[in-house]
């Protein structure tokens, strides 16, 4: 089936098998390998990307379901060589160790902050329940999101994927 998916502002058009997963479209067709695959059952969230602004788990979504969508991956977060406040937050607060879950964590956190710019610790922990991290114990991930929240509420709105 022919699909057209815009990823980080660039259009990718390809004839794909109906069963091709969105995550494989992103990684293998678009060659954007920052989106990781961790569980194949929608539990771990390593493959989280934004599709039309919503955080989705790209390992359990078919590429054909994303036909016509506007997708943002971790590679689309930095702008003009400047890291997004969430990326900075993870770096500054030591919110990552092996880094494998990090892109998914950042994309999911992005959705949280879009909906709730100043979340409480409890709200952050709850929002990240669909994203597993085996290294950090989550504490510094919470701090990373808080740090980004502070920066983003002070600074002019940071747009992503446009």
């Amino acid at each position, binding site marked *: 089936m022919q699909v057209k998916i815009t990823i980080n502002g660039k259009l990718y058009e390809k004839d794909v*098998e109906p*069963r091709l997963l969105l995550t494989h479209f992103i990684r293998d067709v678009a060659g954007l390998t920052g989106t990781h695959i961790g569980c194949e059952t929608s539990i771990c969230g390593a493959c989280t990307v934004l599709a039309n602004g919503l955080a989705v788990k790209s390992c359990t979504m078919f590429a054909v379901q994303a036909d016509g969508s506007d997708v943002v991956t971790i590679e689309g977060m930095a702008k003009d060589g400047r890291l997004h406040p969430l990326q900075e937050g993870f770096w500054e607060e030591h919110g990552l160790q092996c*880094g494998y879950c990090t892109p998914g964590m950042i994309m999911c956190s992005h959705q949280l902050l879009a909906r709730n710019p100043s979340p409480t610790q409890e709200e952050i922990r709850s929002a990240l329940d669909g994203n597993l991290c085996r290294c950090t114990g989550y504490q510094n991930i919470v701090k990373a999101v808080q740090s980004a929240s502070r920066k983003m509420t002070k600074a002019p709105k940071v747009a992503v994927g446009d």
Partner: protein
Amino acid sequence: MTQRYVGQAMKRKEDPRLVSGTSTYVDDVVLPGMLHMAIARSIHAHARLKSIDTSKAKKLPGVVAVVTGEEVAAHCGPIPCAASIPDMKNAQRQLLAVGKVRFVGEPIAAVVAEDKYIARDAADLIEIDYDTLPVVVNPEKAMDPASPRLYDEFSDNIAYRFAFESGNTEEAFKNADVIVKERFINQRLAPVPMEPRGAVATYQMPDNELVVWNSTQQPHGLRTLLANLLRVPENRTRVIAPEVGGGFGCKIDLYAEDGLVGYLAKKTGRPVKWIEGRRENIAATIHGRDQIQDVELGLKKDGTILGMSVRSIADLGAFHSLFTPMIPTLTGLLAPGCYKVPALKFDQVGVLTNKMATDAYRGAGRPEATYLIERIVDVAAQKLKMDPAEIRRKNFPQPDEFPFKTSGGVIYDSANYEVALDRALELSDYKGLRQKQAQLRQQGKYMGIGLSSYVEICAMGPSTALPGGGWEAGSVRIERTGKVTVLTGASPHGQGQETTFAQIVADELGIEPDDVVTMHGDTARVAAGIGTFGSRGTAVGGTAVYLAVQDLKEKMKKIAAHLLESTSDKIELGIGKLMVKGDSGRSINFADVVTAAYNAVNLPPGVEPGLDATRFFEPSNFTFPFGTHVCVVEIDEETGEPRITKYVAIDDCGNVINPLLVEGQVHGGLVQGIAQALHEEVVYDENGQLLTGSLMDYAVPRAHDFPEFELDRTVTPSPVNPLGIKGVGEAGTIGSTPAVVNAIVDALSPFGITHIDMPVRSEKVWKILKGRKAS
């Protein structure tokens, strides 16, 4: 040397690429003409293979090759086991099953195809006819000579016995006022690194050159093992561990798939990739823990420990992976914990069952020791009506008794257990907590306070203790421009060695961490190495780097002395320069000394050009980090859920290079240890079917399961290495598990509860509460 960077909470040098999605993990490696491998695995826990029909799979368009056990066994060696125990039965397994399968998930056939979807389809088309055999999953039953045997060639399923006695335990128990006994089950866990395993191999003829990308914790060890297994010269074999997405011990081993990609690359002449799925990961990547322990502790009325007996059954699973039979024996070495236990009897059997093999998982044999001693000490305190803090304090060896030889047979390097305990009691407001607990109990509410004073065996280790060597290699090269390249064999997977090693080198040379690049994870770049596990990365790997820098400093001092017309003993390194001590006017820039070393026209006699040094550090002993954790739980009366409301961890890992990274290691360790206490368990049914085969069933903890941890440190430098580091990779995991269970038992002690087995899920507690209401 001025410490400008060591001890500072520096942001990590490796993070910009990791937060940008530009780093390269194994699955990101794409090579021209690359094929994809999929594995057909056993659906039975114990069966003879009657026939394997691969014809349908081979006919599927896009399939390039299908191989089965006999063919692979004719060209490749078995899965290697490096551990050895006297009179051990070596339960060896081929890469693909030959004749028989012994656990669900055991690889039977491998397919390579043009893409991963076709490879998976083809693997599913392989028809395997099984003749099922009786299954044994319970290790106690497996010990019975009448139970089904996993290996026809062995007389029974007992793989080894490891027993020793220090002191006279019979006498100790005779003299004891009180003897407490308990059975502890340390359940089977799955390591679950967020990046599953994966491997890519290429095989170039006519040079017989094998290049492998592998998500491994030990590229050099894997290179040697793979060269032997695939019968390729080691000097034609290169292993690259690119970004590795977590290991926790399970990526030390050589697995069937690691060998198969190499064999199939050789067979097909094309690169082959295999990436593990999560269900494969839980079924066929090593598991951890899995011990049954019968523990007896004899004490005087005042709480003084006289002796301990431990009988342990270690469930090894179906075969021996790299360290399988060695890991449970570490429990014996650490069984006395941080107490004086004058007499210890330890008797362990390692048993084969129809389950995946166990091996090193974060802590690896030591959490099982800490759990048994920390639980039994609490059982004793409960019986003696002593405060858990006081029974611990009473039995600590004092600081002036170190180095302290234990009845476990090891020598603890340095410690002050009481200071860590006191700090934990102070930070948690232990007295206040006890008062609150008493008040809540009067209101019919159940809160518990759990302590755990732990010690662990780290910085693995002297070579006498580690099969294959316990040293580490480090190279430091100062390039012509003054930039510094560090090469370490301690290949990290999230620990942050690129940052900590830059901090060490920058301080030693008086330069900036930004001028230091640490390379790792490639056997073609780094000459030799062991790897990162057993909390050894910085303590052993960092020390090798430190020693190499000392060599370069000495050489630079000689050159500087020559240029300044002084002697090298009078030269010292400052920031960006070398100078004559006490004569600030006579100095030379660091960069000028480097240039002199490479231009080589004015070097002192006997000094070779260049600035490049390699050192191997062989530690004289393990290190023994320690600490005390305090956990507070509140029991939800409706659901039985034990909710952690406060967690204080005091850890002493010796000197600290980067407190930010130490904290991160402790946080992650705490979560893994707490998850063992509350959530995680690999469950097989009586037929050997894996009931927790995906992340929908295996309970990896989530962000909302934890409160904010409160951490602090005491600092007792280790005398084992010049940096005074003890290591911190496993501390959180080792210390936390018993603290949580002790807290839950403490909460439920009004009901006469002395022990609850892990994982302590709501259901278990709810049943206890319900029983109380019913009575």
